[in-house]
Structures are given as C-alpha cells and as structure tokens.
C-alpha cells in the first residue's frame, strides 16, 4: 500500500474528500517529523512509539582489505510496536 492508496482508503472510510485527508496526513507527518527532529519520542496509543536513538561511533574493518574506517555517530528513528499491536499480530499465521 503506497501513499495514494492509503489516502484513498482513509477517504472512503471517513467519508471525506481525498484532498482533506491528504492535507491532514501531510500536517500529521510534518508535525511528527518536527518532533522527531527535536529528539522527542512520539507514542501512538495502541500502535507503537517512534523514538530517536543515537548510534555511537564505531570502528569498522573491511573484511577483505582490512581497511579500518571510523564510522561517526548518528541519530536514527526507531519504531517499537506497542504490546497491543503485538497481540494482534500474534494471531497472524506464518506464510512464506
């Protein structure tokens, strides 16, 4: 499901025009991004938490060439599902 399909699906469920849904979604996303940029954790009830984590700098060694490279620290967004969502997913059969 891509962005457009998501908007379309939500629009039909909410009985709202796509344009409204789209602008609301846009606002939500920018709000979330701003909060994450301030390194804040966002919790969605029943869904999960978005959190910024710091990856410390590390030394990587290229296995073939033995070249050592210092990887600088970085901040990444991490999503952790809530236990409610986890329970919902438990019932899902494994098919692959």
């Amino acid at each position: 499901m891509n962005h457009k399909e998501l908007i379309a699906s939500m629009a039909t469920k909410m009985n709202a025009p796509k344009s409204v849904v789209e602008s609301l979604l846009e606002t939500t996303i920018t709000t979330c991004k701003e909060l994450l940029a301030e390194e804040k954790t966002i919790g969605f009830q029943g869904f999960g938490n978005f959190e910024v984590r710091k990856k410390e700098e590390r030394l990587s060694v290229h296995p073939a060439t033995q070249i050592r490279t210092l990887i600088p620290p970085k901040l990444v967004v991490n999503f952790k599902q809530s236990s409610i969502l986890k329970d919902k997913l438990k019932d899902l059969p494994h098919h692959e």
Partner: protein
Amino acid sequence: MNSKEKISSQEIVDLVASKASVSKRAAEEFLKMMITTIEDALLAGESVKVKGFGTFKLQWNEPRKSVNVQTGEDIIIEGYYKVGFVPDSSLKDLVNEPFAHLEPVTLDDDGEPKIAAASESEEEIPEPLRIFTEQAFEIKNILSEINALSGDSSDDDGDVNDQDDFHYEIDTFEVDEDDEESESIDEVVEETVKPEVVETKEDEPEIVEEPKVTIVEAVAEESKIVTEEVEPLTEIKEDAVEEEITVQETPIKTDSSALESDSSAFLENVKPIKKKKHWFVPVIILVLVGIVAALYFVYPPVNEFGNETYTTVKDNVSKWLTPENKNLDEIEAVVIPKDTTEIDSVAIEPVVDSLQILFDTPRVYPEFIASATITKGSRLAWLSKKYYGLSDFWVYIYEANRDRFEDPDKIPEGSLIHIPKLDPRLIDASNPRCVENAKKLHDLYVKR
C-alpha cells in the same frame, strides 16, 4: 536534549488540530483512522509506505530456543511478526542533522587519519589549470618535511637514508625539467612568455649548481669513482653539470624499484607541465587580460619569496663552503627544494589563476548572510554544512569570528556566530581545490 520527553497521542492530536486549524475531534478521528488503516493493511500482510515519513512492514521473527531464567528449563519462543519501520531518507537526514557534518574517516595502520597524510604526500593529478600551483604546494610540503627531518636528525642513519631518497627524487625531477625546458622554451616563443623565459634562464645556473652537489653526495656512498670526480667539481660546477647529471641518471633509476616508483610519481607530476605548455598557447589569448591583473597581485609576494630564497641559498652555500659543516646533506636538502619552488613560482607567474589569488588574498568579511547562536552540540562545521553545503568550509566562519574566539574547538555555548558572505567561487564544493584550501586552513587552525 529531551530524548526522554514523550509526546502522547493526545498531544499529537492537539498539535495537528492547531496546525491544520481543524477541531480536535476531527483531528483525533483522523489520527485514529490513520492508525487503524495502517494496521489493517499490515494485518493483511501488506507494507504501508507513507511519503516523506517511512515504510511500515511486517517482519517475521523465527522461533528460537531460550532458557527460562527462573527454572532453568529450555523453552521455545514462537515465531512472531513484528512491525518494522524504515524511515524515509528525508526523515533520516532531518533527524541526523546534528551529526550530518561528520563523515567516515579511513584510518591507516598508526590510527592516524589518512586525510592528513594525503595532503602532505603527492596528490591526484589535476587538470592543467591547477597543476602549477599544486606542484608549488607539493614542493613546499616536501620542503617542510625535509626541514623537519633535518631538524631532528643529524646523524641518524634511517633519516639520512630517507633524505637520500629525496635527493634522488629531486635529481630526476630536475633533470627532467631541464631537458624539458630546453625543448619547450624554444617551442613557446610567445611574446608574453619572453620575460619569463629570461627569468627562468637566470635562475638556471643556480638550480643546476645545487642538484649536482647533492647527487655527488648521495651517490658518494654507492659509487666511489664519482666522489673523486666530485671534490674538484665543487669549484667548476657550471661546466660539468650537464655531464654529471646524465651520468647519474642511469644509476639512479636502476638503483631500486622503490626509488623508481618514487621518481615515477614525480615524473607524473612533471608531465602536466608539458601539457600545460601546449595548453598555454591558445589560452594565453583568452586569459591575457586576466594575466595582467594576476601579475599585479602576484608579483610582490613572488618577488619577496624569490629574494628570500636567494639569500638563504647564499647563506647555505657559504656555510657549505666552510669545511667544519658535518650536516652537508641537510643543508643541501634544504637548498635544493627551495630552488625548485623558485622555478615553479617563476613559471607560474603568468598563469596564476584567479582562484589562487582568491586563496592568497587575506579575506575580509564585510557582509554577513546570517548569524547563529552556538547551542549545545552544534559546531562551526555544522553551521558551515548548513549555510555553505560542506562542513569543510567552517574555517571561513571561524576566520570571520576569530576576533572573539581564540580556539575553534572551544566556543562557549550561547555565543553568537556571524556567518560571513563568501565569494561563491571560494566555497564551490564541487571544486576539489576549494576543499583542499579549506582543509589546509583547517590544519592551520586546529594545530594551533
């Protein structure tokens, strides 16, 4: 940083409502709908891509064995799905902004950053436009290296050997240039070039003098026959020079493979001079006007430099003439490269490009495009990345604020930093010379 601070669903609803100027109820309903829609899609086994944010996807965790901590029994954790989230690249960059100016650094065996080493040794072969100044810098670097060597080593064997290597390199280098000059000078009989040709010729006797002496000394250890020739030669330098050099040329090259590779590196660097001279002819017409301006700017420093070297050469030569000097090698080592720099700078003169002038003229910062406050965790490099697009250009910000901050690494929190308006040619991130110049300044400021 408030990493602990957690924004709840309700707060998000409030924020979205005020931003989109809709009622809180509508916003809440929308958010709930968004989450259920995403959940439903995920439960249906689909992945959900939200533009500008990221992708939600189900990940299957395989069942695995574990141990019950309390009873010590083996238990099996069932396989399960979890929702994975891969942030969009725009979100990634946004979040990582405080560290965006950091780049991976390749370390060599000593744990020293390679970048520093690279700037001292031979660099990549550049376009004709850049070659002359680059060479000048390289030779200056080598000069300073040799200076450093002669500074801390008087009779140390290892170092002396190193220096011998240098001699060889320089010898071959000089020999080649001499040949070239004699050929190419004839070719380039452009009116504009004439004065320079004369100048180079004036310098030539000097140049030729020194290499011969070094050759003599370097080779002294290996071929005793030559040494005999050498002693008298010191006084009849000029005449015997050319034969000497040709004689030396072969032994040097067959000496060792390491040396050969060294000298080939040098030869490679020398080659562009040839190209340069071909290229020189057509471009002269185009750049003639620029040259006049360039000459105006560049002449004074070059003249000074020339005089300086000349006096040092004189000093050293007179020292050399006094027999008590044991550090002959060192002195020669110092003298020779200086000569080469002189040749180069003389040759460069007519074609010094505007960029070099830009680098050399002391920068003044009359205008500022912005000012920023240093907060915890922010650095000049970060500001540079933000305003100039490349973190390396932080040196210019530092220069503009230097009167107030001594140490670029210790700028107190809350300080106001002015971001200077810079010549766009100076901060052209696609031009490796700009980056290189900035890195040079970086070395300069950070070392202090």
